[in-house]
């Protein structure tokens, strides 16, 4: 048979040129005016953000040329406005991750310019390829704007047929891979949901997050600026966002640092790193850091810094539930989830907010196989009318349940107080943990102060000098308060010299290492 095929002139060059032209148009984002406006607002574009977040040259984009095209009458491309979702895989400190970002220069990041499957595929890739995902959020995060109804010609049923995928992965990935949310501008609606539904969220101090922005809440009669409504001071104190920073660069640093303590997915273990800090290092100041005067407070963060591998403490959620400090740390190079009471806030009592913080933090530790270290100084749950109104006790037992449901290795150091039900919540019930008490430790079902009046009312009322009687009873009871009496009956296992703390915690981290299982646990974490 004769060969009728005409060989190509040279190659597929015209198609390659077309591809490059479309890619170049996509890199223009919403156009020079919108990009300038973004920069004038002190904000980077989504592509600049991805470049600075990821290791240089590591970003591999997916779907760059998806968008809305306009054609000349002859069918040639006149213009391509890209979708406002930029995503792909990249490396962060050498490890593969998924990055998905909103392009605010294209229709303010809203759904009008979104292709629904793009952010969805990013979440699926993180889930199925077992990679951490970093959501770079600005705008409504692909959610709708009021105009959407007119551009689509119909009203969207949120979560309607075919529309639940992103909602599903928004929370599903919390049980699968590390999820970091960065709020780098005004973040509302679905964008706010995607930011809040993360293991760790960071916003810039010029950003704001809200369910609905100032024009909408103005209808409620609340005349507020973006900052007044959802700025960092509101959101970090309410627990809506974990951390606030001055610059976008700092937000990227936070994301990198957060991920450095975690495995890439629940199918792996947290990475160990070499440790140059002597595990047996004794800090002399620990011997006198807790005041003998029981009414006086001390700086728990100084204790943390003294016992962890130098410089390894990475705090999260500092402004929320402040009577408990939470963060990651390393002992002998091994990552742990660290909780520590802060007596500067209600003496370390657990408020309803603190209890919520405990639940989320322990769920994360359990999800990613991080052993827990808890430095305890808890005089109990917060008391008083406001505490009752906040349902402190129900949030409290919820925190206890979260603790009891952990399976990761656990070590508690009782620094000072452990009183009442919240005092009992210092290690998981029903399994063996390690526990040490400092020389300054004291405990009881109830603190004696305030409790004596109730328990010994008849005796006090009958005394000629009730005040003197009260003091006498207090002195009588105080002699039983010594932790040595508790230790002699083996109600507490060990009392230690505080300077031994680092050595014992490094020892714990080493013992805990082989107990961690690189597989999904039973827990399905909620935001």
């Amino acid at each position, binding site marked *: 048979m004769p060969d009728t095929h005409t060989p190509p002139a040279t190659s597929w060059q015209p198609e390659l040129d077309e591809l490059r032209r479309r890619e170049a148009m996509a890199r223009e984002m919403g156009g020079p005016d919108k990009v300038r406006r973004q920069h004038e607002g002190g904000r980077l574009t989504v592509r600049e953000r991805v470049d600075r977040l990821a290791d240089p040259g590591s970003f591999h984009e997916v779907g760059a040329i998806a968008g809305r095209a306009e054609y000349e009458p002859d069918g040639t491309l006149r213009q391509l406005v890209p979708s406002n979702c930029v995503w792909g895989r990249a490396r962060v400190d050498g490890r593969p991750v998924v990055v998905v970002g909103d392009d605010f220069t294209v229709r303010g990041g809203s759904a009008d310019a979104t292709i629904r499957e793009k952010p969805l595929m990013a979440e699926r890739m993180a889930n199925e390829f077992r990679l951490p995902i970093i959501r770079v959020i600005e705008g409504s995060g692909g959610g709708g704007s009021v105009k959407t109804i007119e551009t689509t010609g119909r009203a969207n049923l949120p979560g309607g047929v075919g529309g639940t995928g992103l909602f599903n992965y928004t929370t599903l990935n919390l049980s699968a891979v590390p999820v970091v949310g960065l709020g780098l501008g005004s973040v509302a609606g679905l964008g706010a949901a995607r930011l809040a539904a993360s293991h760790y969220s960071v916003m810039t101090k010029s950003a704001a997050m809200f369910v609905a922005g100032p024009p909408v809440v103005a209808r409620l009669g609340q005349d507020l600026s973006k900052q007044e409504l959802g700025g960092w001071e509101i959101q970090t104190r309410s627990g809506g966002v974990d951390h606030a920073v001055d610059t976008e660069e700092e937000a990227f640093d936070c994301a990198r640092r957060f991920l450095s303590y975690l495995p890439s997915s629940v199918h792996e273990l947290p990475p160990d790193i070499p440790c140059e800090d002597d595990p047996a290092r004794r800090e002399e100041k620990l011997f006198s850091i807790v005041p003998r005067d029981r*009414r*006086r*407070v001390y700086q728990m963060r100084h204790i943390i810094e003294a016992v962890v591998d130098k410089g390894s403490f990475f705090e999260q959620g500092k402004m929320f539930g*402040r009577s408990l400090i939470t963060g990651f740390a390393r002992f002998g190079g091994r990552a742990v989830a660290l909780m520590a009471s802060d*007596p*500067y*806030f*209600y*003496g*370390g*009592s657990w408020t309803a907010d603190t209890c919520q913080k405990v639940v989320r933090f322990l769920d994360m530790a359990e999800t990613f196989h991080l052993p827990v270290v808890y430095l305890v100084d808890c*005089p*109990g749950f*917060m*008391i008083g009318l*406001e505490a009752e109104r906040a349902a402190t006790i129900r949030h409290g037992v919820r925190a206890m349940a979260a603790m009891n449901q952990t399976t990761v290795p656990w070590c508690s150091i009782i620094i000072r107080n452990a009183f009442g039900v919240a005092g009992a919540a210092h290690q998981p019930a029903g399994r063996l943990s390690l526990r040490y008490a400092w020389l300054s430790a004291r405990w009881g079902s109830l*603190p004696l*102060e*305030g409790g004596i009046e109730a328990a010994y009312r008849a005796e006090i009322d009958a005394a000629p000098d009730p005040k003197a009687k009260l003091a006498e009873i207090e002195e009588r009871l105080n002699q039983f308060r010594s932790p040595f009496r508790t230790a002699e009956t083996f109600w507490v296992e060990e009392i230690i010299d505080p300077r031994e703390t680092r050595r014992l915690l490094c020892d714990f981290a080493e013992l805990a290492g082989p107990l961690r299982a690189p597989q999904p646990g039973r827990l399905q974490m909620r935001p």
Partner: protein
Amino acid sequence: MKIAAEIAASVWQIQARPGDTLAEGDTVLLLESMKMEIPVAAPRAGRLTALLVAEGDQVEEGQTVALLEA
């Protein structure tokens, strides 16, 4: 600048007076909460220009308790 109470508490003891020059971290007053004395400190060095609370007062979280002039 405003110096705020970080917690709801009662004012236990005033330790600085208007006109005092304070270094960063100096205690302005002690709050009492959960039987503990919790210091409210000067966030930076300056001169205390006003005290807005008295011993025994109840303060709310975030309430301004004193003013500092840098």
